[in-house]
């Protein structure tokens, strides 16, 4: 008995998720992550404004391909993410329990809800056009059709206090319509976000469609909100910075979804989180011989 030493576990290094790869922060920094009770859980990468820049470049590069896919294909891939998450339930539940300080049963329920959220938004991908678009009865010999299109690169601030379900609830509606996202994870509980990235990376989701940064909100948010190559912001988790970020967004007239009622908590929020990140394109064409 005395001769048998216990096996030493192999711990995971939590990194960023940018352009389909898992880099450490270019700054070389990390920060300790603790449970609500104050126990040390792991170190997370402390992203810098240069990581923000890299993530925006990756998101922009991925946009033509992702928005150019068929809506059906996007739906299939979002559904695949749900499948991949389901297969890692135990890991997610453990991390959510540690991060939120909730019971195992509650953590299981939160993971279930997060998986179901992907399924919900997978189903929206090829239905947005028929609900929001359509022919317009203009007075004249014209065919006139309005169609929603994704706006482009969206900066997303994940809600604080719900590191998995909250994050999925704001990320999925942004990318289902064809946008690409740069997401800043919950500063105090970033670990489930990184594990989610590992599921995304094995889900046929093209690299760069979802980029996930961990670090200080106050450091990452202004460069993201002020970046001229970002088209829209979801300020769900912006907290006290929301007004400042909205003002920064005004310079390039970004579309902004303000933090509001916790509608990301709703299992059927409809298009409320999809619509803000869409443009409407209307095409006119004469009808004649």
């Amino acid at each position, binding site marked *: 008995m005395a001769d048998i030493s216990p096996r030493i576990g192999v711990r995971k290094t939590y990194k960023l998720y940018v352009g389909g790869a898992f880099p450490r922060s270019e700054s070389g920094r990390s920060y300790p992550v603790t449970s609500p009770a104050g126990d040390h859980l792991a170190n997370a990468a402390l992203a810098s404004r240069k990581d923000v820049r890299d993530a925006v470049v990756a998101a922009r590069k991925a946009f033509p391909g992702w928005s150019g896919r068929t*809506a*059906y294909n996007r*739906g*299939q891939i979002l*559904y695949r993410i749900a499948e991949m998450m389901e297969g890692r339930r135990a890991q997610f539940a453990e991390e959510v329990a540690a991060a939120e300080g909730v019971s195992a049963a509650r953590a299981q329920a939160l993971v279930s809800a997060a998986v*179901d959220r992907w*399924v*919900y938004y*997978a*189903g*929206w*991908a*090829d*239905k947005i*056009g*028929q*609900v929001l678009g359509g022919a317009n009865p203009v007075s004249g010999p014209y*065919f006139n059709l309005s169609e929603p299109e994704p706006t482009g690169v969206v900066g997303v601030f994940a809600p604080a206090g719900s590191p998995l379900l909250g994050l999925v609830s704001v990320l999925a509606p942004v990318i289902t319509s064809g946008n690409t996202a740069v997401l800043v994870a919950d500063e105090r509980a970033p670990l489930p976000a990184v594990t989610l990235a590992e599921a995304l990376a094995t889900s046929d989701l093209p690299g760069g469609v979802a980029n996930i940064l961990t670090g200080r909100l106050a450091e990452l948010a202004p460069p993201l909100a002020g970046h001229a190559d970002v088209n829209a912001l979801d300020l769900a988790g912006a907290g006290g910075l929301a007004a400042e970020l909205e003002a920064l967004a005004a310079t390039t007239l970004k579309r902004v979804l303000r933090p509001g009622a916790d509608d990301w908590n709703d*299992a*059927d929020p*409809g*298009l409320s989180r999809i619509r803000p990140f869409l443009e409407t394109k209307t095409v006119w*064409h*004469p*009808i*004649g*011989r």
Partner: protein
Amino acid sequence: MEIFEYAPAPESRSIVTIRPSYDLFIDGEFVAAKSDERIVTVNPADEEPLSEVAAAGEADVDRAFTAARRAFERVWSPMPGAERGKYLFRIARIIQERARELAVLESLDNGKPIKETRDIDLPLVAAHFFYYAGWADKLAHAGFGTRPLGVAAQVIPWNFPLLMLAWKVAPALATGNTVVLKPAETTPLTALAFAEICQEAGLPPGVVNIVTGAGDTGRAVVAHPGADKVAFTGSTDVGREIARAVAGTGKRLTLELGGKGANIVYDDAAIDQAVEGIVSGIFFNQGHVCCAGSRLLVQESIAEELLAKLRARIERLRLGDPLDKNTDIGAVNSAAQLARIRELAAAGEAEGATGWSPACPLPERGYWFRPTVFTGVTQAHRIAREEIFGPVLSVLTFRTPEEAVAKANNTPYGLSAGVWTEKGSLMLWTASRLRAGVVWSNTFNVFDPASPFGGYKESGYGREGGRHGLEAYLG
């Protein structure tokens, strides 16, 4: 030197296990029919029997409706949409996983080429379930009611057996209805394979019930007082009969019936692609397509050039073993259908039109008909008015857009039409005047679960596919 000719490239049959006999699928299980009658289903490519299935009688149908009603009330309609949707997603995934097996089975039972079942039917079947799975928890956003109707009685044809099943079952289940479905008597096997898939998916018993049989079974299904909704795809004559039977009962009804689609080719069309569209319009699935472009309306100024290219293209079609991966034209589904095609083709000759077919050899056994083009056809000919449902194209000419539209609309049908022109405004002008439920421009016979499909006039009513397809199943 060896000549480069295609060698046989048959898809393996071994991927499919066909049982010698099948029971009915009721309440989640295969159960012996009370009726003693059996139906033998044959491979139309060699006339060999594949299996035999039960011909469900009224007592069997009644049992299916009882199971469907119970499942509707106790399990399926109370279930949250998100959970119903997950069953449909599962079914879609299982279909994707078993796609090759189902494609081979469909080709064996129906006679259509493996190229089509593999590349068109099965991907569309899976996509249809996937699409409607996504609607199950979003009915409030569709713009119709959100309450299911109850039990749907569904009767489907033999031309796209599994795809028509998907068109019927997926929206019904997504909206919370349960179904009693009768597949066609000559093509029951993929529906029975689908029953196994329902079991594999853990679908609650009674949500899907499949009763095999012929016309009498179909009549019993449609007439059953337990049906809240009737959905039928098939011939206009049977559709009329069903509409009469349903009249006064309060049952909701959708019908997807016959067609005599016009494919209009203007003189500025991209001619090589128009030829492709004409070929896929009429020879896809041996012409067993209700929305086939069976009337070619070509502008007189390019008729000669177009027909020369069309004949050269048809010469390249490869007719034969449906399981050969290089086969373009498979077998006609049944002896009865072959007889009908022959009769109408003979009428075409008798009425003075000129028939032409390529010199392709036909297999010795099985039901086969060469691709055929009739020129010199007028609006008065039977082959210009009646649905042939076979690989027979009737060619008419026109001089002006007005004449093209007038001829295209000069039919009691109104399911599909095609318009070929490089001029967008002329395309829209033509499309806006066509009395048809689907108008393809510079393409033909393309389908998508997001796109509504259905006819005007005697081609039926109601739409399947897309958001519009939910309406038929919601109160």
